[in-house]
C-alpha cells in the first residue's frame, strides 16, 4: 500500500507456521516478517515422533522441515513465546516483555498434550507431543522398561505399536470399550482390538486409572479404580490435546475450543488469521465449523491463510480463496496403513465392506444419504478416490 513497510507476525514454529512463512516470503516481498516460534528447535515434522523416530528408524536431523531461504533482514525468527495479544493496538507481547507490533497476525500456536493432574510431576511418566517428549521417552527405553500406555487414541495406539515393535512388554489402558473410537467413528472396533492383541499388547478395556504408584519419585506402576495394579517403569500418556489459546485470553478474539475463523481463516478481528491445530474454521465442504488436528490440514491451512493475508493487504483479490478441504490423516501401526478422509461426526449410516478383493476393511460414512467420510486399511487408492468423490459431491451441492 503506502511507503510504510508492512509487518506480519506469525505465532507458532511448527508446520502451520512454517508453511505460512514459506508462502509469505514469496507472496509479499515488501513485508517484514517476525516469526515467533515458541521453540528452541527448528521446525520439525511430528508424525514420525510416535512411529519411525520412536522405533529408532530415523534420527533428529531427518525430522527437520526444510530451511526457509530468504533475506535475513526481512525475516526475524524469535525463539520466544507470545504471552498476550492486544488486538486493538495490533501488537503481541512476548514472554520476555518485548512488544511486537503487526499489521497482520497469523495464529498458528497449535495444540499441546493434555496431562491429567494425577499423572503430573512423576519421573518416568511422559506425554508425547514434542521432539523433547519423544527424545525423553526414547532415552528411557535403554533399561527395557515395562511400559504402560494410557489412552487408546491415535497417539496411544501408535506408541503401543512402536513399543511392541521394539520388543517391550506393553499394557494399554483405555476407558472406553474400543480403540481409536473418536478418529474412526467407531468403525473397525474389533479390527483394532485384534491387531493390538495379536501383536502382544495386553489390553485393559473399560479401565479407569485411579493413581500412580511411585517409588523414590519414579513411577513404579498404575492403579486402576477396580483396585488392580500394573507394574511399570515407563508410562506414556495419550490423553488427547488442547489448543494453545491461553495467551489469547482477554484479547477480545472469539475463542471456543480453538480460534474461531470464517471460511477464509480470518478471525473476528481484522488482520488476524489462524491456521493449523489451533484453528476452528467454517469448512465450505461441509458448511460447518471444525477443528482438524492433522498434518495435511496444518500444512495446507498455513499456505491458504498466507494467501488470504497477502490478498488483504496488497489488494490482490485473485489470491483470496475460502479454505474448502476434505480432511485427511493416516496412522501406521505394525506396518498397517490406516487412512481416513472426510468428517464422520454426525454421520447417520456406516457401510462396512470386508469382502471383495480389497486387502483390508473399508468403511463409508453417510449423512442424509451423502458420503461424508471414508476409512480404510491398506487400501490407499480406494480411500483417495473416495476423497475426490466427497469433494465433487460437495461442489455439486454448493452449485445447486
Amino acid at each position, binding site marked *: 500500500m503506502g511507503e510504510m513497510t508492512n509487518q506480519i507476525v506469525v505465532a507458532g514454529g511448527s508446520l502451520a507456521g512454517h*508453511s505460512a512463512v*514459506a508462502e509469505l516470503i514469496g507472496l509479499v516481498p515488501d513485508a517484514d516478517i517476525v516469526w515467533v516460534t515458541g521453540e528452541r528447535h527448528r521446525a520439525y*515434522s511430528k*508424525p*514420525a515422533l510416535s*512411529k*519411525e523416530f520412536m522405533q529408532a528408524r*530415523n534420527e533428529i536431523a*531427518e525430522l527437520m*522441515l*526444510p530451511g526457509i531461504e530468504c533475506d535475513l533482514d526481512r525475516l526475524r525468527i524469535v525463539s520466544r513465546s507470545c504471552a498476550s495479544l492486544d488486538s486493538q493496538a495490533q501488537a503481541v507481547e512476548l514472554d520476555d516483555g518485548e512488544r511486537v507490533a503487526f499489521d497482520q497476525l497469523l495464529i498458528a500456536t497449535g495444540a499441546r498434550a493434555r496431562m491429567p493432574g494425577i499423572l503430573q510431576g512423576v519421573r518416568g511418566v511422559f506425554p508425547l507431543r514434542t521432539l523433547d517428549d519423544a527424545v525423553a521417552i526414547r532415552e528411557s527405553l535403554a533399561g527395557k522398561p515395562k511400559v504402560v500406555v494410557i489412552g487408546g487414541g491415535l497417539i496411544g495406539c501408535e506408541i503401543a505399536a512402536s513399543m511392541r515393535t521394539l520388543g517391550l512388554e506393553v499394557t494399554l489402558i483405555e476407558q472406553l470399550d474400543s480403540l481409536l473410537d473418536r478418529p474412526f467413528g467407531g468403525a473397525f472396533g474389533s479390527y483394532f482390538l485384534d491387531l493390538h492383541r495379536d501383536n502382544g499388547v495386553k489390553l485393559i478395556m473399560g479401565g479407569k486409572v485411579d493413581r500412580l504408584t511411585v517409588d523414590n519419585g519414579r513411577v513404579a506402576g498404575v492403579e486402576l479404580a477396580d483396585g488392580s495394579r500394573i507394574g511399570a517403569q515407563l508410562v506414556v500418556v495419550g490423553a488427547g490435546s488442547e489448543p494453545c489459546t491461553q495467551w489469547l485470553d482477554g484479547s477480545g478474539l472469539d475463542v471456543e475450543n480453538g480460534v474461531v475463523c470464517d471460511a477464509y481463516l480470518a478471525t473476528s478481528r481484522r488482520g488476524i488469521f489462524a491456521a493449523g491445530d489451533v484453528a476452528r474454521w467454517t469448512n465450505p465442504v461441509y458448511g460447518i465449523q471444525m477443528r482438524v488436528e492433522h*498434518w*495435511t490440514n496444518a*500444512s*495446507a491451512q498455513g*499456505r491458504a491463510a498466507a494467501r488470504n493475508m497477502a490478498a488483504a493487504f496488497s489488494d490482490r483479490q485473485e489470491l483470496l480463496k475460502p479454505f474448502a478441504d476434505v480432511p*485427511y490423516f*493416516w496412522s*501406521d501401526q505394525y506396518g498397517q*496403513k490406516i*487412512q481416513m*478422509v472426510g468428517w464422520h461426526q454426525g454421520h447417520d449410516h456406516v457401510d462396512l465392506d470386508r469382502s471383495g478383493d*480389497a*486387502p483390508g476393511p473399508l468403511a463409508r460414512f453417510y449423512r442424509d444419504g451423502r458420503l461424508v467420510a471414508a476409512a480404510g486399511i*491398506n*487400501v*490407499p*487408492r480406494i*480411500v*483417495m478416490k473416495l*476423497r*475426490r468423490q466427497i469433494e465433487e459431491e460437495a461442489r455439486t451441492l454448493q452449485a445447486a
Partner: protein
Amino acid sequence: MKIIVDRQRCDGNGVCMGIAPEVFDVDDDLYLHIAENIPEDPELRARVRQSITSCPILALKLVED
C-alpha cells in the same frame, strides 16, 4: 520436471497422492509410483511442488524443474 523418492523412507501414507493424484499413485502394497512425464500445466506443477513440501517423511525431492 523430475521427482525422486527415497524408497528407504517413503512409508506409503499417500499424502502426495492426495494432493496430485495425476502424478503420485500409492498402490495397495503401499508402493509409490511417480509419473515419468509431468505435463507443462502450471496448476498441476504447483500442486506437485506442494506434494513435495507436504510429504511428512520428507521423502520426495525435486531434481529437475
